[in-house]
């Protein structure tokens, strides 16, 4: 039973959009990062897919940008409680990146420049649910927001949308990435408010 906060009215507007529990709307674009923003030159950039033993796919910046691109408009939900609606991105679908990958592995660990990692079930990456994005709002993705390219998995809390991605490792069993190993939820569904591992 919640305690009523004396004199607190809160701010609700008519016809308020439905947000995941515990979230509030913002119109700017806050940043959550554990460390300094890495600066990655495009001639050194690559994205690889491996199965833990061998690299299965590899793209450099040019071959990656030659893949068929998609424009997506999605809502973002950050575990620090802000939500931002109708954000516009351009990127390559994971369906495209995984089209020629035959695997019976069920999970993936994403790796970033700057050593960040995050884990996801493979089924959350397929069927138009995930992209590697390189443009935000029509312009090249800024470094503090994950540029040159970041993962975008909008149906999960935004920490799953790893910035500065450089590769993914397919795995048989799920295991925690960076924030997941520091007490955040292994899956991170905002609609079920899976913020912390104890929930």
């Amino acid at each position, binding site marked *: 039973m919640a305690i009523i906060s004396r004199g607190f009215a809160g701010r609700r507007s008519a016809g308020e959009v439905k947000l995941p529990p515990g979230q509030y709307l913002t119109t*700017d674009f806050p940043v959550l990062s554990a460390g300094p923003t890495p600066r990655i030159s495009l001639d050194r950039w690559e994205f690889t897919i491996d199965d833990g033993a061998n690299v299965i796919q590899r793209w450099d910046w040019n071959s990656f940008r030659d893949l068929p691109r998609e424009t997506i408009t999605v809502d973002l939900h950050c575990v*620090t409680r802000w939500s931002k609606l109708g954000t516009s991105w351009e990127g390559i679908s994971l369906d495209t990146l995984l089209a020629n990958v035959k695997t019976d592995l069920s999970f993936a660990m994403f790796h970033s420049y700057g050593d960040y990692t995050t884990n996801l079930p493979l089924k959350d990456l397929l069927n138009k649910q995930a992209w590697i994005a390189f443009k935000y709002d029509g312009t090249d993705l800024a470094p503090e927001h994950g540029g040159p390219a970041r993962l975008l998995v909008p149906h999960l809390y935004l920490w799953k949308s790893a910035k500065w991605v450089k590769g993914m490792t397919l795995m048989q069993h799920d295991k925690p990435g960076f924030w997941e190993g520091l*007490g955040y939820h292994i899956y991170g569904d905002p609609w079920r408010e899976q913020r912390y591992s104890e929930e």
Partner: protein
Amino acid sequence: MAGTEVLGRVTWRSGKVVALFDETSSARTIGIVVPDWPGHVAGQHIDVRLTAPDGYSAVRSYSIASAPSSDGLIEITVDRLPNGEVSPYLTQQVMVGDELEVRGPIGRWFVWSPEQVGPVQLVAGGSGIVPLMAMIRSRASAGSTVPFRLLYSIREPGAIFYRDELQTLSSQGDSVVVTYAYTRATPKDWPRPAGRINRELIDSGTWPANLQASSYVCGPTSFVESATDLLIAAGQDRERIRTERFGATGERK
């Protein structure tokens, strides 16, 4: 009894407001006693939940400003945001004796504990001082003599949080070395004109790179981006720099 949702460590708990102190014209420190508080490490934050009579609730995260203690007292310092939903309530309406729902502590990355023996560089932008002050207080209460330096960037002299305490802590033996940097207005006769953080300030206000200090940088996103770039340009190892950023409307501190 309130706060009996069984969620392990992140259970909502009922705290009582026991002290209020205005740090500046827009920021207030709120002391909260949480009877079954599990303890915290400097740098961690709590969630605060406000609930209206019709059941509508709003939750925000605030960094803990106080050192770990065993008596269940925690302090947060809240800066009032002009269009905030929760910060105006916490800085203007809350009274001593009110109950506040809190949960935590949360966060295991942007933390410092007295078992860490290496030198520490703190870099604060505005209200980003709050979790760093918890580290300074944690060092003091543990009797640690680990070398600490604070580079504290603020708009103007009146915007400094914890002014007297920082003065005391920086004037004792084994003290914390504090450097203030003003971005809009300086005190009278201040040697450096007001301006944004730059390389010269990093060179004069932070440990030399060869000391291999652990750096904690907290503030608005643009400040953290500049400060970390400058630290790296000055030779600091990016692996030893931890950051916490907050956006203009993100009330996380």
